[in-house]
Structure formats: structure tokens, C-alpha cells
């Protein structure tokens, strides 16, 4: 078995949830959802979600 790829498996994620998935980030040029949390926002403010 190969290592996990960079493409999140969203087949069973309801379509309605996809616009509000906040633990994934979109690789915009390819439209590829990467499953790592975005590194740009670290140690996020805990008093908001």
C-alpha cells in the first residue's frame, strides 16, 4: 500500500458540508483539497471558532 496522497477523500462527506469544511485547504490552481490544516493560521484564537 502506498502512503496517503495529498487529496482528501470527500466521497462520503455530504456535499452540503463541503463549503464549510474548515480543516482543509484548497490548492486553488488544481482545485485539490489537501487534508493538512492550513499552516497560515497557527495557534488560532481560542475565543472564536
Amino acid at each position, binding site marked *: 500500500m502506498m502512503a496517503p*496522497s495529498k487529496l482528501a477523500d470527500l466521497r462520503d462527506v*455530504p456535499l452540503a458540508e463541503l463549503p464549510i469544511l474548515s480543516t482543509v485547504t484548497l490548492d486553488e490552481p488544481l482545485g485539490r483539497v489537501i487534508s493538512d490544516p492550513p499552516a497560515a493560521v497557527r495557534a488560532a484564537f481560542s475565543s472564536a*471558532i
Partner: protein
Amino acid sequence: MSRPAVPPSESALAPLSQFVLKVHSRCDLACDHCYVYEAADQSWRGRPMAMSDEVISRTAQRIADHAAAHALDTVQVVLHGGEPLLAGQARLRRIVTELQGALRGIGRLDLRIHTNGVLLNEDFCELFAEHGVKVGISIDGDRAANDRHRRYADGRSSYDQVIRAIGLLHDRFRELYAGLLCTIDIANDPLAVYQSLIKLHPPRIDFLLPHATWDHPPVRTPASDSEYADWLTVIFDRWVSDGQRVRIRTFDSILSTLRGGTSLTEALGLGPTALAVIETDGSYEQVDSLKAAFDGAPETGMNVFDHALDAVTQHPGILARQQGVAGLCRTCQDCPVVTSCGGGLYTHRHRSSNGFANPSVYCTDLLKLISHIGNRVRAEPIESPGIRTHVLGSLQFRALAAGPGDGAAMAQLAEAQRSLVRSLLGAVYQQGMTGPEVSAEVKAELQRAWSLLTALDRERPEGLAATLRHPYIRAWAIRCVRQLRAAAAWPSDAGRGRRVPGLAADLGHLGAIAAAAAVRAGTSGTVQIPVLDDAVHLPTLGRLVVDPQETGQTATVDVAGGLVAVRLGGSGWTLAGTDLVSGVAGPDATVGRGHAASWQPLRTLCAPGIRVVLEDTDPYRDCHQRHPAPRLTDAEFAQWQRQFRAAWQEIECEHSAYAAALAAGLTTLMPLAAATDGGDLVAAARDAFGAVAVARPADPATLALLLIEEFQQVKLGALLDLYDLFDPADDHLFHAPWREGKHLLGDLLQGTYAHLAVTDFWRARQRLAADPAAGQQFEHQRAQTRDAIETLATSGSLTPLGTWFIGEMRHSVEQ
């Protein structure tokens, strides 16, 4: 009082990327656990109630300057309070427009508001939808749990108002719904709290430990020192057994950090702080939970009028939280769970006698909770954080690397494309609904189409999946996302509408996709569809060509009772849905009034073992960097059918190794306009999985070669969607044996992979026909492919997987 003693250091400067704007300093509730009003710091009493226009402007400019100076890709701004909705719609509108204006052309702006929800109404939501502001709400569980603390000053419950606000987000403005924040009270039943929150369908939950310090420790029972861990553990275990139906930030952060990843919250992990708070008077402050430590704890002594944000990054309090393990006390440094815990929330470490050089006052809870989760992870696989990834089997990877691939490899690649297209649909909808450059009318149609699509996804997923397999839906979605991103980055509003003349029509195509899926699923729905090239398009089915004199830019399409009714201007037509799906509907299938219209179905090329759609109607098929042929006549289609059947016979007989992957993965053939010089034309597109575009060549053998060669691009493109085979940032140029000039490594890899198949083609030809010309072609192609493989292998840019892939290619070409 004690402040961290960390000397300023130029080398330690890390940019800030998250800004909490205290847009209003008062609250309409009087929650007795609120750190803003009930804790040691009482600075709110001396602040202006709301941010002034001047503070708003200076704040937006300071953030934009900081983002530009540090080339930040994304800036997150949280509108906070007090209660931020008390600022009112006009002020909030001013704040978001100032921020968007200042950051346009600099970086992406992720806007959020966190509210108690009491005042949230449709007008606020319309404003947030217009500007793409996501909304988080505080609620502590069911009515009993929430009423324990979250009350008005006169003691009234706020529960009903909060539930109404959450319902509004869930039912009407779902794309804005960011999640729920729950402050723990161990007097509440954890499962009751969890289940009450789950019923509100949040995309995300977080559980906050109530703010406490060593001077003011949390409420505990005499018999235990880890009630908070026990309380959260009950929820964690249920969350796992329930299949993690919702993201829970605390648990996701622990799972992520246990595996070496990053935390999603400042309350855990070793990530550096990147956060600054801006108060209503323009003062810069550190994270506001510090108010629980001592009076004045968050202060920096700086403000938006006199100081750039770079100065804030040098503040000792900020620097102290960028030291990782080195910034923690010895007890924490020696702790086995330090990478997950990170010492806990900075505020919770405070003791008046020695400042922040302590473990968290919740240390025993954090150690127990993280250990429990770690033990569960070791005992059974738990996905982290919530989203699985696609995995290609090693046999399939090897089959692809050898050149031909196989049916199983194509099936796995196709499944991965399903995820990719679904994510793109979500991105188009989310960015379309929150893009300020998109009109309210277009947003209303987007919402209508999205409602139909999500209903189909729930109730008739097969019909939707069949539509989403169409290769040009990805091309369309990428086009939309790029346009939305480009429009958002333009430096001013001037001329924006003129510069994206096709954006509304492009976004309207979501309705066409929804209608086509509804027809396939046999369900009902009504959408607006843009008229493009004098036709109403239904992807995967065909198009209704209307009179060019027909008025109206959009058609209304009703799908109901097995019929598809199209209305445009004063005309209307009806088609039978089952005929559209089966493909038997012809030009005269429409029954209507007003002007005449003609249905043009998609046609299918058939040969034993394969069926391929001949796509000559889709408005987004023009993504192959070659001109599509216009709609084929019946006679032209018949020529294609004869040639395709003969070409497939040759592929099956002479190049059978390549037949399996083609049969499994080639779904669409898009006719190209003939080359002016009469040469062969063929093209694939990264954004059109399963499609090959080709001008009909002179003979079936050439078509067989062109299909085999170009389908390599389809296979490799889909593989590269999953795995990096080389460093995409490498901009070195390399020589390709078959073409003048130098090329990027990715282009050389694509060309080499195609040439590997061409080599195999001529290898088979020379063996079967003992044809001297074929033998020469084989030797020539093999020499060039060998040469290119060695260039790739010695490029220094291959990943380990890429090295494996090239090794398999080398082995294959030498056979």
C-alpha cells in the same frame, strides 16, 4: 503583576496573521463566566463603546501594510467584543468594506465574527453573506447548561434567542455557519451537552476550559484533580464511536499533534502565536484571555495611530509565545505530552509570584486527556483530523509507471477525481456566495442550484455522481474559482463588472449541472440556466439550441414528473427526461410554443468493450488549447463511429496492454477542428479527466496511436493530483529529445510518459507486422525516451516516489 522577561530579538520576528478586532466593548448578556467583564482586568470600563471610523481606517491600513510587508497569503480577522453585533449593521459594513478594500490585491482575507447570537437576524446574515463573513456562536449546551451562566443581567435566559440564531444559520445561511463554542462547566452532563450541540449541526465545535490561573484555580471537587479531563474524555469516546460526525477543535488538535502535525488552537501545541487584538480605542493588545491573569495583562502600550504591527511582534509578551518548548517551564519541557499540550493556554499558566513560568493550572487534566487519546490512537486507527486521503495501491502505481496502467488503477484515479470535483463544487459555491463581486441575483440562483444539488446528494447520489463524472465540470469549476480569486484581488472596485463579463454566466452553469443531475435522478427541481452560444446546456445530456432572436440571457428549467420544461422569453419547450438520459431524443423531440428549438443530444461512440461519449456541445470543452470542432453532422458522426470502431479493434488486437486502462478511463472524445496544415491534432487537459480531444485523423491506425499517446497525459495528470513526483517549485529547464528548446521538468515528464507509450506502440507494430519502417520508428522512439528518462533521473528534483516511477519507466522501455 508579572510580565514575561524575553528580550526583543530581530531574529525572532514572526509576522502576525490573525487579528481580533474588538468592534464593540459592551455586551447585552451578563454571563458570569465571561473573562472580559468578570475577570481581573477591568479595562473595558475606560474604552469607547464602539470602534470609531478613524480607528477602523487606521486598523485596516495597518493590517494591510503588515500583510504586504510580509507577503502574507492569508490574513484572518475575527470581529469580536463584548458583543460585536452591538456595533450595528452600518458600522460592521464599514469595517468589512474597509478591510476588504485595504487588503485587495495584497492577500486573501478570512473574515469571521464571533457572537452570542442574541441579536443575529436575517439582515445581519445578508450583510455577512454579501461580504463572506463566517459566523461562530457561543452556547454552552442544552437549555439547563446554557442557563447556568449565559443570562441577561436581569437573570433571563438567552437560550431561545441563541437557538433561533443557530437555526437561521443552519437553515438559511449555511455557508456562513462556522461553528459553536462551548465553555465547560463540569456540573453539566458532558453527554447531554455534546448531544445537544450535535443536534444543531455545527460544522465545528470547540470546548473551552473556563479561564483560571494558579491564583484563581478552576472549580474542582475535593476528590479529584482531573474532572475536566474526565468530562472531555466522555465526549471524546462518544465522538469516536459516533464516527466523528463533526469536527471538534480540541480533539482534532490533539490527534494532529500526536502525529507530529500542528494544533488548530492556541490552547494546545507549540505553535507560535501570530495573533494581535485591537481594542475599540485602537490599542494593540495581546490575546484577551490574559484579562483573567491580572489587571492590564494584555496591554502592549502601542496603538494603531502610532505604531506599525511590526512593533507588536517585538513585544516581550508576543515573543514569549514564539519560543516553542524553550519558552516553557522545566516541568513542561520534561513532560512526555509537551508537543500536544504545549503548556496549555498561556493565560492558564499564570501565578502572581512568578508569572507564566508554570505548567497550566489544568496540567493534570491535559496530561490525562492527551494520554487517553494517545492510548486510543495506538489501540485503533482514528482518522486525523477528520478527513481521510485517497491512497493508490502500490500495484496500481507500478502498473501506471510501466506505461499501460490497468483498469484497477484507472478506477482508483477516477474515485480520487470524484473527491476533487466535489471539493471544487463546494469551492465555487462558497466563493461565489461570499464574493463581493457577485451580484445578489447571481447569488440567489447559486443558492437555488446548490439546494437542488445537495438534495440530490442526499437522496439520489447516483444521479449526481453520473453527472459529476463529466470531464468538463472540473474545467468549468476551475475557471470559476480562478475568476473569483482574480476579481477579489483587483485593487479597486472600478470596472470590476466589466472585467468579468462572463462570471455571472459561468456561475449560472451550476444550475445547468443541477438540472442535468435532476433529470438523471428522475427528481424535481427548478433552476435558471444561462443561454450560451444560443443554447441551453444540460451537461452529459446535450443542449437545446434556440432561435438567436430569442430574448433573454437565462432560461428557466423545470424538471418534474419525468418532463423537462424550458422557458425562455416568450417561448417554452418540453422534453421527456427519460429520452434525454437514454440519448434517443433527437432534434424534433421538443414540443413547444413560440420560436422553434432543436435538441442536440450527446452521442456515444461504441465498440466491443468500450463506450465513449463524443462531446461536441459542452460550452466548457474549450480547455484543450485547441479549437473544438463545431457540432458534428450525422454524416460526420458516422465517420467518427466507423473510425473509432476500427481504431479500437487495432488497440485491442495489437496494443492490448493499453486497452484495459483506456476502456476503464477514457470516457469522452472531444472532436477538434482540423489543423490548417492537415497534420494530426490531439490534446488532453489536466482539468478534464477522462477526455481526449482529437481532430479526426486520416486512418484508424493513427487514431489508435493518438488515443494511446494522449491518454498517457490523462493518467499522469490524475496521478499528479494525488502525489508529487517532482519538486513543482523547480524552475530549471531541460532539453527534450523530440522538441526544440528547453522545458520545465513537469512538461518533460509528461512528454516522456507519452513517448513511453509511443515506443510501446511501435514495438508492438514491428513485432506483429515485421515492418521495417515500424522497426525504425521503434528504435528512434526508444532512443529518445531513454534519453529523456535519464534526464529526469539525474534532474535532482524527483521525490522518492518520482524516483520509483522513473525507475519503472526505465525498466519498461528496456524490455
